[in-house]
């Protein structure tokens, strides 16, 4: 029998995905397109936030949306109603979007005529956090009715995101949600995260969110132009 050998590998399991994500960032950079990966639980308000973002920003930026869903096109239809191009990815059971799927969607989009692409990831606080999609910034929504204990239960997603949108703050009076304790838990996991409180229903805080996003896009476009 042949010798038994131990081969050291030390190779990242998701290295293929990371490499592809880097390629995507290069392509986007060449076209001067900024991409945001938006993650949240089902019902957290991803589509509502995207619709609000479009309404506030479509005069300043050319926006496109990639919709990830297990099996439906309802979210893409809402975006298209706003006059914005959308590509629907049906994952057929997959719990997250990875770089391969995002590349397929971007191939369908007219990057020359876009400034911002928003990825609406699959509703899930676990799996999407693990995969680099090629986006420049990662955002997550946590809505008040979900509870202030979520950073304790799903710590990873809070550590990887650049910005956290606390949605449905119009529920604060009736929900058992301790905002101070919640933010303390989040900052403990990720001291540099930006937290923005909004209500997609009343519109409160939306401008603060779109200002943050516009600043990020402008800073990026500034580097891409120089």
């Amino acid at each position, binding site marked *: 029998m042949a010798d038994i050998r131990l081969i050291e590998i030390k190779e990242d399991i998701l290295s293929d995905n990371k490499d592809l994500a880097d390629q995507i960032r290069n392509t986007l950079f060449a076209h001067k397109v900024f991409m945001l990966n938006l993650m949240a639980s089902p019902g957290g308000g991803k589509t509502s936030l995207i619709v609000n973002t479009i309404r506030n920003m479509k005069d300043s930026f050319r926006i496109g949306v990639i919709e990830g869903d297990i099996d439906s096109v309802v979210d893409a239809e809402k975006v298209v109603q706003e006059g914005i191009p959308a590509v629907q990815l049906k994952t057929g059971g997959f719990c997250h979007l990875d770089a391969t799927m995002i590349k397929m969607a971007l191939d369908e989009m007219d990057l020359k005529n876009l400034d911002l692409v928003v990825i609406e990831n699959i509703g899930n606080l676990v799996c999407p956090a693990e995969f680099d999609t090629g986006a420049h910034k990662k955002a997550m929504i946590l809505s008040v009715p979900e509870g202030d204990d979520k950073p304790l239960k799903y710590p990873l997603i809070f*550590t990887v995101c650049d910005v956290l949108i606390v949605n449905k703050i119009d529920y604060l009076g009736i929900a058992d949600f301790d905002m101070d304790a919640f933010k303390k838990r989040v900052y403990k996991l990720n001291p540099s995260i930006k937290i923005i409180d909004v209500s997609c229903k009343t519109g409160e805080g939306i401008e603060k969110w779109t200002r943050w996003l516009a600043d990020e896009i402008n800073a990026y476009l500034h580097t891409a132009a120089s």
Partner: protein
Amino acid sequence: MHELSVTESILTIVLKHAQTNRAEKVLAINLKIGELSELVSECIQHYFDYLSKGTIAEGAVIDVERSPIIFQCNDCEHSFEVSLKDTRDFACPRCGGVKVSLISGREFYIKDITIS
């Protein structure tokens, strides 16, 4: 939940290294996965058995080594381990600082393989 796509990547990487080293068979695979990664080791083996059928990696035993969650205090640079259940409320045990950086716990790689 995303163990299937992860396992596909593991198989691709293992077969690549096995072929480079002219292996006849892959006997064992050692993974290093951080405590913060929500992966179920049993699922990985299960999917691997299914995906590796007919390849030289069929029958390989997967062992997962979990690396602990370790933070470093941004104020005094002291490193300390925190268990997953304690991530809810902790501070630097040396200076009480709460601004910390994660230095271990998100690992996700293939450490080595045993081949013949």
